[in-house]
């Protein structure tokens, strides 16, 4: 017990321990939730024909997939597999979930990186711009724009924009078959452009609000006044003193948003037919493919936790006071 206590005292080990517990919780939750849903993998894969199966056939199939085992055994079996790198196999496509994930993850990752980049590039300069004259037209104008971006549902904007582009300009890159970045960079980037923009704009909104608020707060700090008193010109003041300190909350919100993006932006991936991790979960759910859903959700959770850890590390870069702890 005392060893465990010691482990929890060490800041890094503590974080790792917390992460492991989080992941364990996620695995138990998804496992249970899937079992609570009516129907199972077999009835789902056979659709309406499932009714034609005799009880014996059903029992055989269930035994084949290991669904006749007690839940705890199933769980331990699955988790044991996951730990040794076996995420299970999709019953419909006969593909290993690991292979599926390896194929889908880069697409989601690419979309997430592009979206967060757009979100930060719009949100942070926007925040600086709005905060430069609080209460002025530029401030209220950007606030209205940000609120609009936040309140318009992404699926609506996405559908409207892509339909409009396709109808008016005949440009519909997402109508073609999806190309990965490695296969055809030009087509891939065209296909990524719209979804990344739609997501980026919706991320820009909270980033903008956070940036604006923290810049305004930091501007009134004593040390900013002192920097002015030593003759620091306003541009340098903005970047070296104000923005540098305002980065701390911006990193927080950026990290959170990025984590959510990695969870697969289900709706956007669906609308723009991007074979990402969100779609993988959706397809798995439709088919009640336990292995696919469970393992993919766990992968997403691992990514989320990893992003959180990375955000913490970024804090240490941005804020020396955190480094000292």
């Amino acid at each position: 017990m005392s060893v465990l206590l010691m482990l929890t005292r060490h800041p890094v080990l503590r974080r790792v321990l917390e992460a492991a517990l989080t992941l364990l919780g996620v695995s138990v939750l998804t496992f249970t939730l899937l079992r609570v849903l009516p129907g199972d993998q077999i009835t789902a894969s056979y659709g309406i024909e499932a009714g034609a199966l005799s009880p014996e056939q059903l029992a055989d199939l269930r035994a084949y997939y290991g669904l006749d085992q007690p839940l705890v055994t199933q769980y331990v079996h699955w988790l044991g597999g996951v730990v040794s790198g076996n995420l299970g196999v999709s019953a419909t496509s006969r593909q290993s979930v690991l292979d599926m994930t390896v194929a889908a993850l880069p697409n989601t990752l690419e979309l997430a990186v592009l979206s967060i980049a757009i979100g930060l590039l719009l949100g942070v300069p926007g925040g600086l711009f709005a905060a430069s004259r609080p209460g002025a037209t530029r401030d209220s104008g950007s606030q209205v724009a940000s609120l609009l971006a936040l309140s318009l549902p992404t699926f609506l904007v996405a559908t409207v924009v892509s339909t409009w582009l396709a109808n008016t300009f005949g440009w519909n890159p997402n109508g073609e078959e999806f190309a990965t970045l490695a296969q055809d960079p030009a087509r891939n980037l065209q296909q990524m452009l719209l979804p990344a923009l739609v997501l980026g704009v919706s991320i820009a909104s909270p980033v903008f609000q956070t940036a604006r608020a923290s810049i305004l707060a930091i501007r009134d700090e004593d040390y900013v006044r002192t920097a002015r008193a030593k003759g620091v010109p306003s541009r340098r003041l903005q970047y070296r003193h104000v923005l540098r300190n305002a980065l701390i909350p911006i990193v927080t919100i950026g990290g959170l948003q990025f984590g959510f993006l990695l969870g697969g932006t289900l709706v956007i991936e669906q609308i723009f037919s991007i074979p990402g991790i969100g779609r993988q979960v959706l397809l798995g759910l439709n088919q009640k493919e336990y292995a696919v859903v469970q393992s993919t959700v766990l992968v997403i959770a691992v990514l989320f936790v990893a992003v959180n850890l990375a955000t913490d590390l970024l804090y240490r870069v941005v804020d020396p006071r955190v480094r000292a702890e």
Partner: protein
Amino acid sequence: MTTTTAVPATSAKQIEPLLAVTNLSVTFETPHGTVEAVRDVTLEISRGETVAVVGESGSGKSTLAASINALLASNGRVSGGSIRLDGAELTELGEKAMTAIRGNRIGMVPQDPMTNLNPVMKVGAQIVEALEVHGRASGQQARDQAVALLEKAGIADAAARSNQYPHEFSGGMRQRVLIAMALACRPELLIADEPTSALDVTVQRLVLDQMAELADELGAAVLLITHDLALAAERADRVVVMYRGEVVEQGLSAEVIEAPQHDYTRRLLAAAPSMATPKIATSVTEPGTREVLLSLRGVERRYRLRGRREPLVAVGGLDLEVRKGQTVAIVGESGSGKSTTARLALRLEACDAGVATYRGTDLATLKRTGLKDFRRSVQPVFQNPYASLDPRYTVAEVVAEPLRVHRIGDTRSRSAAVARLLDQVALPAALADRYPHELSGGQRQRVAIARALALEPELVVMDEAVSALDVLVQEQVLDLMVQLQRDLDLAYLFISHDLAVVRLVAHEVYVMQHGRVVESGDPEEIFGNPREEYTKRLVAAIPGRREALR
């Protein structure tokens, strides 16, 4: 208005003063209308001279300082008069021209070292920046200069320290960094706005000495802004006294102290406690026979520090007793364990060793009703009257809250109690519906005292409760404390770093250092004839020991 100009006639004719402020007025636009914070102020500073501007908070002294290097808050502006630096008019300069002057020709040392350094920049880099933006030096040369400046400002091992961040420095060290920063470009004028009021008394003296030395070495004139007349007289060639935005008196320091012309200056002088001020504490008859309220026996409190194996002993083996109707004071520097002792006495924290009792009952054993009774009998008043009142509560709500929490009386009787309590602390009943931000610092601290008195306590723990107040207000609050003690037979545990104040009100004093009591007894004896080295240092650090001047 009495104005005595002390600049020798010859020098005034021959050379233009370095800084000439003439008929300056500064106004602020507020939601309640226009406020004139500085009115018709005229003063001059010659090269190499130190001039102190003295006044209480709200007197306009900081506004005056801010208007000189055009750093007024965005709602403030110079509405009249002129500010000339070496003959050049500053009020007409644009932001860009002003940026070239700030830090270069006018250096500024701000008040609070804890908040005035950029937390994410190394201290060396912050000094380098001052040199770079004015093209004084760059690269390695600038870094070398920064290290040399830090060294001169009194920072040991400056080369290594310059690579550290502000949070790795103590308050006194940070202020030295700020002084080095302000003087980096060898400015002709150094504005020091309450440069040491946030520091410990013993450190204050050292930092002021170092600042004066460095300014002298670099030939900078100093405009010292302070609320402390004694300190001003000790440090400055001339003193300018401000009151409600106007200069009421100026002259050579010794003259102003010896023969103050204006009534306000006389009041300031009278209110500032010194070691010669007569005591105001009530005499306690046969103190030894009064019942013991609070008793701490061998009390210890340790804190575990991150990254350190040994716990920090905040309070170690402390013995202390407070009897009914008695004022017991604890003095010492920050970090000496004073405030920890207050928290232990209030049972906001538990002792790690030793026994704390109240009326003979061990505080550690108190549960529910016992604890509730204890909380009724012992009330706190904290240092910062700005932070210790809920900004969303009216004065009446603040004062009535303890009654509500302890379910005493009904709405009507509570509002009667509020009226009585406000009267007790000499606040007009009309203030009951106001919010804390509408009150002055002194009024707020009276509200905090009224709140503490609401439950008719026997013991009030005052943790630096008068330290943030101006001398005139402080005098009133101290008088109020003593009067309440006489009327209600209150006991005080009075924690302060200000020996002169402690001497006025305390019946018994404990001098603490590093969590231990180094000396205790009658304040007159302890301060008049300190035995321990530490106590001697504390006594010596009191600015302007005015007995000598009188």
